[in-house]
């Protein structure tokens, strides 16, 4: 499934002609795990009051959310083609009022965790047992707003909140540790009173177990630091921060095929799992 979603992402981005590649590809396994294993949700009833909530703080990776939602049955796969187009429900950055199933509007970084925390607090006040999940990125941990939320969630012992950090070590201007070193995020969260779980963000079993474990933590909010590979699955994009905000066909980077071939190469590689299986078209 995650592999299909990666192919959807490539096709959507190519069709749109703009948008982010690295983050969405890197987070495909986590989104698959969430929508197909972890979240208690009803695709045909997106406003179901008991649904688990998923707040996406780093809104620029929304293509992976759209593709996963379509695969999970929220809307037809066909609609993925409209990404970033005029009149589309699939805005370049997610807009709550346009597409049922998005919990909030995001894109400007750093403000999703506070909203998730506030939402978790409100659910607890109402005795609603739904869980709140929040996905954030490493780059947006440069924002003070994130750390304000980290303090707030710990103070309020928000045990109904699970945070997942896309720790892919890149942002726009370069590697995170050069742009603004985050250092040991696990130690930082632990010092702020959180329960910390670190996983390989491409290991499906590890993702699911971590989400289960997070539910069992008492007295503390839980954070899952997911180590991911930006551009995962497309060899010429992996680990290269230049692919943060560019779709295939728009950029020349060392090791990348010529622009005109990039989409084809990416899709072929994903379809064959990097040459390990034969493509159905071969």
């Amino acid at each position: 499934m995650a592999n299909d979603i990666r192919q959807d992402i490539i096709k959507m981005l190519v069709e749109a002609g703009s948008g982010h590649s690295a983050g969405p590809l890197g987070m495909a396994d986590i989104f698959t795990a969430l929508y197909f294993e972890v979240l208690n949700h009803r695709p045909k009833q997106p406003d179901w009051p008991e649904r688990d909530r998923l707040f996406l703080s780093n809104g620029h990776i929304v293509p992976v959310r759209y593709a996963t939602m379509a695969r999970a049955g929220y809307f037809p796969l066909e609609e993925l083609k409209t990404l970033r187009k005029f009149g589309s429900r699939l805005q370049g950055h997610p807009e709550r009022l346009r597409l049922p199933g998005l919990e909030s509007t995001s894109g400007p970084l750093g403000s999703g965790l506070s909203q998730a925390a506030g939402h978790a607090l409100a659910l607890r006040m109402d005795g609603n047992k739904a869980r709140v999940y929040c996905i954030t990125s490493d780059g947006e941990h440069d924002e003070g707003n994130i750390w304000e939320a980290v303090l707030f969630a710990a103070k309020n012992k928000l045990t109904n909140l699970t945070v997942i950090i896309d720790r892919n070590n890149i942002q726009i201007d370069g590697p995170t540790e050069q742009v603004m070193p985050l250092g040991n995020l696990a130690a930082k969260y632990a010092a702020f009173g959180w329960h910390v779980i670190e996983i390989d963000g491409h290991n499906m079993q590890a993702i699911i177990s971590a989400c289960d474990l997070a539910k069992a933590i008492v007295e503390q909010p839980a954070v899952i630091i997911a180590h991911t590979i930006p551009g995962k699955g497309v060899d010429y994009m992996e680990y290269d921060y230049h692919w943060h905000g560019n779709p295939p066909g728009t950029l020349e980077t060392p090791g990348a095929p010529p622009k005109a071939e990039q989409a084809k190469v990416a899709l072929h590689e994903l379809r064959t799992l990097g040459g390990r299986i034969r493509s159905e078209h071969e």
Partner: protein
Amino acid sequence: MINSQMHLNPELLSPEVKQEPIRSGFGRGLLAAGESNKDVVALCADLTDSTKMADFAKSFPERFVEIGVAEQNLVTVAAGMALAGKIPFVSSYAAFSPGRNWEQIRTTICLNETDVKIAGSHAGVSVGPDGATHQMLEDIALMRVLPRMMVVAPCDAIEAEKATKALASHKGPAYIRLAREKSPIITTDETPFALGKAQVLREGTDLTIVACGTMVYYALLAAEELASSHKLDVEVVNAAVIKPLDTVTIVASARKTGAVLTAEEAQINGGLGGAVAEVLADHYPVPMARVGMVDRFGESGTPEELLEHFGLTAPGLIERALELIKRKSHK
């Protein structure tokens, strides 16, 4: 008639007019300012290439400061550096700076009167597919209400370069608004520019269009069309400096034409149109209309689609100009 004293680009009205992003002029101006004054420093919030600070960063690595995705830190660190005698230029997308960090700007830059120059790139709906969150439309209003803040929205890359250099030697807080997409080159190196001065790019007697930024080009196109198809003689004023607004030039033009249309790629409330309305209400009220985003957000789409949809092109201006002319003649 095009005002010959403005030395505008002779190719201006040709379909093949040269185009360049306005933000590129900022990049050149910043580099030049850095070369002529070693106190000029540049700070960026993880958008060094797209806000065109990369050339400065390469030429003066010791005077370039990477802040990361932290716009509140961006402007407050800059204020601290200005208090130590530096002239900091800070850049991000306008939605985030000055969108996110307004109170910090108010206190540490304006109330403090520090010499910080804020560059907001990717302003307007012409940002395109990124959608509403990234299409900053409220920045003019936000910056204009701050005491001591100068507000500049250049109409092309050449003017942006001149404005950036001028701001480097102007004492005090300033905001410069930049757009993402390529836009036509309107001016030349010979076109006069001064902070606090509006330029009459085209002289006319029937109606004045006061425009800033990307809308100046459409105002000029609309004026040509209104002349050829409607026999109307339209004056076009480039109000690149929105604050302090050049009251003398705008009131003189209103006296001459008796009707004023404003045009900006920004919210209709509180922007250039608001500023012009305030000036005319105080000094010389005439029938007026404002073109801009009518109290709503943008959305994803191509820049062309969005500008057309929201009436921010020559046809949109022509329609509003003709309505205004009717109102003027009924008066």
